C-alpha cells in the first residue's frame, strides 16, 4: 500500500502538486484522472523519485520512501512507465526486456569477463522470460526489432512488458493510452487486468480515456489544481457534480453571460 | 604609518593592479564564451584559439602600419590595428559558422556534438595561427612603457615601495571598461541587442515574434570576434603573444564563465575578476607586504606564498569545483540546459 500525505511540489511560484493526500490499496487498479495541469504526472514523478517533493511524505507498506532515487524504489518493487515512451532505442525489443531484472551475474564486470558459463545459463532464462512476456503482449514478432523503430503504441506495450520482467509490487502507468489506437489499448487493458489478477500487481493508472478507466479502475481518484478532488468508483465519479465542474471549468459558476461582459 | 602606506603600495603594485588587469582580460574572454553559450547553446572550445587568431591578425596589421611609419604616439600601435583585427576575425568566424556550425544548427544537433565540432575548429585555428605567425614569442607593445614608474613614484612620495603603473595595464583597464560598456549598451538598448537577449531567453518565442535566427547568430559571432580579439590583444600587450598560451587561457576563462553562471554576461565579468584575484592572491609571495605590517621579530622567514605560480590552474579548478558542488548554476543565475 502506498500512502501520500500532504504532498507539495512547487516549481518557482507554480504549485504543481499542492497538498495532495491519497492511498493506493494493495491489489487495486487505482485510476488517477483530472484535467491537464492538475498535477498528475508531477505527483507520479515525486512518488517515483524523479523529483524531490517540496514537502510531504510518501510511504510504501509503512516504510518512508520519500525522495528515494528511482533505482532504489525499483528494488523495493515500485516501477513506473512514462507518458512519452522511454524505450532504449538502439537495443532490440528483447534486449529492452532482458536488461530489466536486477542482480544479474553479468552486470558486474568481473563476471562479464570471467563468468561466462553462469551468464550464458542466466541469459537463456532471461531470453525465455522475455519471449513469454512478448507473447503475453502479443508482440512476439517484434522481438528482434530495434525498439526505436516501434510505433508509439508498441513502445507503450514494451514499457508495460518491462515491468513484467520482475515481480513488481506496484506499477505506475503514466498515460498508457496516449497515442495508442483502440485495439491496442484494449490489449493493454487486458494485460493490466491479467497482471492484476494472476500476478497480484497493484496498479496506479493515469489515463484520459474514460471507457478505459471505467473498465479497469476501482477506485478512481480525481485531481484538480494539485489537490485530490474526489475519490470513488468510476460510475460515482462520473456523476459527481464537483468532478464535472472541474472538467468544465470553475470560477464563473454563479455568473451569467451578461455579467461577464 | 609609513609602513602601512608601504604595505598598501606593495599590495597595489603586486596584487591589485595586476589582478585587475588580468581579471579584465579574463572577463572579456568569459563574455565571449558566455554569449556563445547563451545564444548558440554550446561550450566553445575554440575560443582560446579565436583569441589567438584575433591577436595574430592585429599583430600583422600593426606590423603593416609600423612598416609604413604609422604609430600612435605613446599608445601602442596595436590599438589602431585592433578594429581591423576584429574585422578580420569577424570574417573568419562568420565563414566558420557558414561552413561548419550552420549545418549542425539546421540539424538541431545535440550540444555535445557542437562541442566536439568546436574541438575540430580549435585544431584548425591553432594550426592556422602557428602556420602564419609561427610558434615564437612576439612582443608587439610599443609606445610608452610606464605611466608611472617605480623610481618616479618613490621620489614623488618618499616611500620605500615603488608603484609602477605600466601603460599596458592602464590601457587594458580602460579598453575593457569601454568594451563592456559598449556591449551592455548594445544588449540593453539596441533593437538587435534586445533581439539577441530574446533569442537567448526563449528561442521558439523569438521565432514567433519574427526575429531572424540567422541574423542573431551572425551578430553574435561578430560580437564574439570583437570581444575575443580585444581580450587577446590586451593579454598580448600585457604579457606577450605566443601561439599556444591562449589555449591555456581556456581553463580560467571557462572557470570564470561557469563561476559567474553560464549564459549570464554580468556573471562572466564577476567570474573573471573572482578567478583572477584568487589566482594572484594565492600565488603571490606575501612576504613583501607582511614585512611592513608585522613587528620585526615576527617577520616571516619564507616567501609566504600559498602556492607556486605554476599552480594557478589549480586555483581556477578549485574554485570551479567548489561552485559546481555547492551552486551549480553559478554565482549569478545562469542558464541550465
Amino acid at each position, binding site marked *: 500500500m502506498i500512502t501520500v500525505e500532504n504532498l507539495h511540489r512547487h516549481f518557482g511560484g507554480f504549485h504543481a502538486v499542492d497538498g495532495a493526500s491519497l492511498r493506493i490499496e494493495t491489489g487495486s487498479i487505482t485510476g488517477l484522472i483530472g484535467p491537464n495541469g492538475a498535477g498528475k504526472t508531477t505527483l507520479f514523478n515525486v512518488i517515483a523519485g524523479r523529483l524531490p517533493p517540496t514537502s510531504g511524505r510518501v510511504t510504501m507498506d509503512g516504510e518512508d520512501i520519500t525522495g528515494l532515487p528511482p533505482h532504489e524504489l525499483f528494488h523495493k518493487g515500485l516501477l513506473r512507465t512514462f507518458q512519452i515512451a522511454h524505450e532504449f532505442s538502439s*537495443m532490440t525489443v528483447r534486449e529492452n526486456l532482458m536488461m530489466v531484472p536486477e542482480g544479474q551475474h553479468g552486470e558486474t564486470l568481473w563476471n562479464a569477463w570471467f563468468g561466462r558459463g553462469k551468464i550464458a545459463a542466466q541469459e537463456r532464462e532471461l531470453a525465455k522470460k522475455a519471449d513469454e512476456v512478448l507473447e503475453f503482449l502479443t508482440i512476439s514478432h517484434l522481438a528482434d526489432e530495434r525498439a526505436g523503430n516501434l510505433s508509439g503504441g508498441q513502445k507503450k506495450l514494451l514499457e508495460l512488458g518491462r515491468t513484467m520482467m520482475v515481480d513488481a509490487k506496484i506499477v505506475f502507468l503514466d498515460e498508457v493510452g496516449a497515442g495508442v489506437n483502440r485495439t491496442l489499448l484494449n490489449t493493454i487493458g487486458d494485460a493490466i487486468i491479467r497482471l492484476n489478477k494472476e500476478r497480484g500487481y497493484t496498479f496506479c493508472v493515469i489515463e484520459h480515456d474514460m471507457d478505459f478507466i471505467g473498465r479497469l479502475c476501482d477506485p478512481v481518484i480525481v485531481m484538480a489544481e494539485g489537490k485530490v478532488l474526489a475519490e470513488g468508483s468510476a460510475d460515482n465519479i462520473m456523476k459527481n457534480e464537483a468532478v464535472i465542474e472541474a472538467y468544465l471549468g470553475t470560477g464563473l459558476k454563479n455568473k451569467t453571460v451578461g455579467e461577464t461582459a | 604609518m609609513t609602513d602601512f602606506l608601504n604595505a598598501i603600495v606593495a599590495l597595489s603594485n603586486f596584487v591589485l593592479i595586476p589582478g585587475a588587469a588580468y581579471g579584465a582580460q579574463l572577463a572579456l574572454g568569459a563574455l565571449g564564451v558566455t554569449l556563445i553559450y547563451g545564444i548558440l547553446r554550446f561550450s566553445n572550445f575554440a575560443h582560446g584559439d579565436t583569441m589567438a587568431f584575433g591577436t595574430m591578425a592585429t599583430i600583422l596589421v600593426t606590423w603593416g602600419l609600423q612598416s609604413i611609419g604609422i604609430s600612435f604616439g605613446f599608445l601602442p600601435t596595436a590599438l589602431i590595428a585592433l578594429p581591423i583585427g576584429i574585422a578580420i576575425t569577424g570574417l573568419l568566424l562568420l565563414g566558420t559558422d557558414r561552413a561548419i556550425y550552420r549545418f549542425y544548427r539546421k540539424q538541431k544537433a545535440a550540444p555535445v556534438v557542437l562541442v566536439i565540432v568546436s*574541438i575540430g575548429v*580549435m*585544431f584548425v585555428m*591553432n594550426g592556422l595561427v602557428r602556420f602564419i605567425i609561427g610558434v615564437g614569442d612576439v612582443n608587439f607593445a610599443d609606445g610608452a612603457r610606464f605611466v608611472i614608474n617605480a623610481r618616479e613614484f618613490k621620489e614623488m612620495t618618499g616611500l620605500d615601495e615603488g608603484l609602477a603603473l605600466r601603460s599596458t595595464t592602464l590601457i587594458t583597464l580602460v579598453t575593457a571598461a569601454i568594451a563592456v560598456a559598449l556591449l551592455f549598451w548594445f544588449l540593453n538598448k539596441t533593437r538587435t541587442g534586445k533581439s539577441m537577449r530574446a533569442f537567448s531567453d526563449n528561442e521558439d518565442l523569438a521565432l514567433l515574434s519574427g526575429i531572424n535566427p540567422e541574423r542573431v547568430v551572425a551578430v553574435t559571432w561578430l560580437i564574439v570576434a570583437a570581444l575575443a580579439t580585444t581580450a587577446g590583444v590586451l593579454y598580448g600587450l600585457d604579457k606577450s603573444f605566443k601561439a599556444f598560451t591562449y589555449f591555456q587561457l581556456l*581553463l580560467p576563462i571557462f572557470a570564470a564563465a561557469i563561476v559567474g553562471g553560464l549564459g549570464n554576461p554580468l556573471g562572466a565579468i564577476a567570474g573573471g575578476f573572482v578567478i583572477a584575484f584568487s589566482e594572484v592572491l594565492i600565488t603571490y609571495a606575501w612576504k613583501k607586504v607582511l614585512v611592513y605590517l608585522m613587528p620585526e621579530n615576527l617577520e616571516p622567514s619564507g616567501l609566504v606564498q600559498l602556492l607556486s605560480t605554476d599552480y594557478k590552474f*589549480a586555483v581556477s*579548478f578549485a574554485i570551479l*569545483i567548489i561552485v559546481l558542488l555547492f551552486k551549480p548554476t553559478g554565482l549569478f543565475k545562469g542558464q541550465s540546459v
Partner: protein
Amino acid sequence: MTARGFLLYAGMALLIVLTGVFQGWNLALTILNMGLISAIMSLGVNLQWGFAGLFNVGVMGFVALGGLAAVLVAQPPVVEGWNAGGLRLLGALALGAAVLIAAVQVWKRKIGGQMRAMVMLALLIGGFFLFRAALDPAVNAIEAINPSLSGYLGGLGLPVIVAWPVGGLLAAGAAWIIGKAALGLRSDYLAIATLGIAEIVIAVLKNEDWLSRGVKNVVGLPRPVPYEVDLQRDAGFVEAAAGYGLDPVTASTLWVKILYSGLFAVVLIAILFLAQRALASPWGRMMRAIRDNEIAASAMGKNVTARHLQVFILGSAVCGIAGAMMTTLDGQLTPGSYQPLRFTFLVWVMVIVGGSGNNYGAVLGGFLIWWLWVMVEPLGLWAMELITSGMAADSWLRGHLTDSAAQMRLMTMGIILLAVLRFSPKGLMPER
C-alpha cells in the same frame, strides 16, 4: 568484425608495411609501437564516450599519471633522499589526506549550515598551513641532495612492467576524485573539470621535484627489453642477424622495437578482449541502456551515477596504463612535453574518426591517426616544396612556407575531424 572492418584493418597494415618499404623499417616499427599505445588510449576514451557518453578532455592528465608510475615503480630509490626527509614527507602527505578526509566528514555531518561551513573552512585553511609546515622542510631537504643528478626520492626499483598496472591505478584514483565531484552534472562541466585536472597533474609533475624531478626530467628508466649495445655484444644475436643479412646495429635496433611491439600488442589485445567481452555481456547491455535513456534506466533499477563513475574510472585507468607504457618506451619522463592538443584532443580525433562506440573502430582510429600525425610532416614538407618550386630560392614566402610545413599537423587533424563529423559522423567503423 564486418568485412568492411577487415578491409580497413588490412589497409592500415598495408600503410605500415609501405612505410617500412619506402621509408625504412625502423620508422615503420616506431609508428607501430606508438600506434599500439595510441590504440589503447583510444580504447580508454571510447569506453567513456562510446559506451557511456562521458565527455573526458583530461586524457593528458591520466596519461601523465601513468608516466609518473613508471618513475615511481622502476627507478631505484634514492637512499640519501629518503634519509634526508622521506618519512617526514610521507607523514606530511598523510596529514594532508587526513585533513581532506576530516573536511569531507564534517561536510557530511548534518549540523547547522553556517556552522558546518565555518568548521570546514577553518579545518581546510588550518590544515593547509600545517601541511605546508610539515611538507616544505622535507621537500627542501630532499631536493637539496645532489640536485643535478637526483634531488628526488626515486622509485621502488621494481621491474618497469609493474608500472603499467600501477599507472592504471594512479589514473583510476584521480578519476575517482573527479568523477565524485563532476559526474551527474551537465556534460560541459565534466569537460571543464577534466580539462582542469589534467593541467593540475602536469603542474604537479613540473613542480614537485622531489616526486618527479620536475622539468629536470627523469631519464634512463629501466627497460623491459634488452639494450641494443648488449645485443650487439651477444655473439648468438650477431650470428642470427647475419643469417638475415643484417648488420648488428640495425638488427639490434629493429629487434628491440619488435620486442616492444610484442609486449604492447599483448596488452592491447588483452584490453580489447576485455572491452569486447564487457560490451557483449549484460554489463554492456546495461551501459547501452543507460546511454540510450538515463531516466528509463534509472527507473528500471540501474544506478546510473555509480555506473558512470565505474566506466569513467575504468576508461581513465586504461589511459593510465597506456601512459605508463609510453614512458617506458621513451625511457624517460619529460613533464614539459605533455600538451593537451597532442595527448587529449588527438586521442579524441582517433575515437571519432575510428567510430565511437566500436572498440575495433577506436583501435583502428588509434593506428590511422597516429600514422597520419607522423606522416603529415614529411608529406606537408613535400607538398610545400612542390608548391614553392616555382619561387626564387631566396624568396621570403618560400622560406616561410617551408618552415611552417611542420605546423600543418594540427590543421590537418582538425580538417579530418571536421570532415568525419560532417560526412561520416559514425566514423570509419560505425557502432552497428
